[in-house]
């Protein structure tokens, strides 16, 4: 049980981790930096400027309609998808937890499948479905939201279920013993205990939807349904200006704002539990 080799190992591993973190995050930091470049180049620094955010007459995010639309549409999809997926996922998780039998097992199976199915398979399947079947919606925002819901449902279900499993049934039983109805027990006892898990899953879903590429691209219709990720894909090898870095940075900032807001809310509501299950819950996926 000597600690010297252990310390040396910690040191080596720590160095590896630091190098990894730098390799992982520095390129992005450079991309963010260049969004403030005063010239057109994305590799030669020409001075600091907000040109690509505000004042360039045709190329800035503020003035260029296609960039602006990409930004707003991405945020719209994020909000819509999260607003539907999280409640739906919580319901599913509760159902799966309470209901024994083959159907929930099959549903559980399908939910977990979306972690490993290549996204292109789901995207093409939905594209064909919308194109060939008389679905009540067409390609475009609705189709994109439906696709995103299907793909993201797994997150809240898994996270909330993991939390449910650790909570167990004793709190609800106690509530019912004290006279609450089953629904009331769920609503007033269980749900508040689930808030941390719900927040974590909402954050994850929102951030993931903002990044989504394959699904939204196959299910998009015209320029009004283009997202930031599609814009980057379409433009990156053509004639990109730092404005592309700018919209990417703005989306990044949106993600972070939501994450921080969620984390603050989690601290406010979750810590009273005494259990640090948020991050652990993510990790148990």
């Amino acid at each position, binding site marked *: 049980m000597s600690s010297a080799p252990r310390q040396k190992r910690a040191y080596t591993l720590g160095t590896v981790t630091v190098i990894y973190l730098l390799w992982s995050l520095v390129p992005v930091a450079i991309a963010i930096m260049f969004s403030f470049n005063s010239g057109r180049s994305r590799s030669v620094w020409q001075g600091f400027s907000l040109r690509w955010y505000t004042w360039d007459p045709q190329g800035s995010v503020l003035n260029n309609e296609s960039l602006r639309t990409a930004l707003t549409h991405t945020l719209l999809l994020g909000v819509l998808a999260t607003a539907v997926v999280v409640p739906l996922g919580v319901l599913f998780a509760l159902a799966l937890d309470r209901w024994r039998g*083959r159907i929930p097992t*099959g549903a559980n*199976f399908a939910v977990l499948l979306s972690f490993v199915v290549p996204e292109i398979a789901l995207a093409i399947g939905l594209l064909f479905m919308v*194109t060939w*079947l008389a679905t009540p919606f067409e*390609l475009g925002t609705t189709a994109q939201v439906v696709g995103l819901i299907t793909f993201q449902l797994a997150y809240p279900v898994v996270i909330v279920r993991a939390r449910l499993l650790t909570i167990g049934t004793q709190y609800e039983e106690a509530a019912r013993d004290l006279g609450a109805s089953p629904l009331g027990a769920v609503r007033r006892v269980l749900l508040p205990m689930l808030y941390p898990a719900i927040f974590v899953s909402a954050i994850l879903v929102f951030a993931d939807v903002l990044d989504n590429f394959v699904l939204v691209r196959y299910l998009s*219709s*015209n320029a009004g349904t283009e997202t930031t990720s599609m814009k980057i894909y379409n433009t990156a090898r053509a*004639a990109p200006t730092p404005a592309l870095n700018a919209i990417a940075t703005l989306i990044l900032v949106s993600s972070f704002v939501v994450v921080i807001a969620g984390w603050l809310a989690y601290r406010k509501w979750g810590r009273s539990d005494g259990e640090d299950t948020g991050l652990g819950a993510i990790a148990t996926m």
Partner: protein
Amino acid sequence: MSDAEQPRSPLSRRRLLQATALSLPAAGLLSACARDSGGTGGSASSSGSSASPSATSLQIASPTNPVKWPISAGNEPIAAGQNPEQGGNLQLYSYADYVAPDVIASFEEKYKKYNVKVTYSTFNDSNEALAKLRGGSTPYDVYTPSYDQLGKLVLGGVIQPLQQSYVTDIGNAYAEFQNPFYDQGWQYSAPYTLYTTGIGWRTDKVSEDVGARPNPYDIFWDPKYREKLAVLDDTREAIGMTLLRNGQTDVNTGDDTILNAARDALLEMTTLTKPRVTITGYTDIPEGRLDLSQAWSGDLIAALGYLPQGVKPDVLRYWFPADGKGMVNNDLMVIPKNAPNPVLAHLFLNHLLDPAVALANFQYVGYQPPQVSLTPEKLVADGIVPANLESALVKPGYFNSGYRLLELSPETDAKWQAIWQQFKAGA
């Protein structure tokens, strides 16, 4: 807990049998739910295709076989003399960077009192665009194809005939576009841009004079330029160029021997020079990411606007056969049948035929408009196009000498697409 063993059962034989048993009624259910394909006339139902045009009814238009398309009963031109749609949002569908922002802005300004807006959606290749248009779920107002799709667009009921009284400026274009071989009487289309397909490069990266070679197209097989060149990401253009390099002159051939030779040459190119496959030459060449590329003439003129600081415009070069025996084509503007703003669409076509607007468009997009007043001599004399890129201008004589990329019959198209697929799969 029995749950731990439960996961085995979803995959059991019983489930499989259940699934199979369900599939037949499911099939019935789904075919009842099948969408009427796009509502644009082509039929996808299994109940027979008597209403849909057959492959045999597709006439292939060519300079020696001009075609006047029929106007079918349900698809007549809109009424003349109407006002533009109030508050309309014109849906423009074209390649990226193919319509100048200034031109769009001037259109919105011109019809400001009708509160007009323009939304510019883009596609990467014309097949993808045709699929979207046929699907019908996204209505567009103006579409810019080439005439190699026109037959399918007309027969498939995808586009509407023009109400020519809105497009008075057609007189500004070359007279032959009022009766082109691919659309006699310009019933369905107005001309958009003219272009040739040749080779573009920067002289400071490529020291030789590409045009001086006995067979300039051979440069794509020259290992000296390995990893530094590109061919166009366009089935017809890339394979067509290979045919020309092989000494063929029919760039619309369906002959198996000739096509197989082209396929083998393309695969050989992959191993010899590892070309990139892209349509972004108009930025890649000036910005130095490519030394040399197969390019459309307009790409090189547009490239003038993408040169980095410190690089002079005279490094750009474009080669096209001096005798005009190369690929010469023009793009069109058409109006899809389900256009939400047909009057505005017609007015937009007219707008682009105005000489001042066409010139402004040219200076951004780089592709030459078929304007009578904008002759190649004038463009060079006025300094709009530098002398080193004079070869990128389309001279009127080219239309007689050049090779046109005509529409292909479905069987021939299938052969070309198969070669392209094999090329893109990479050896």
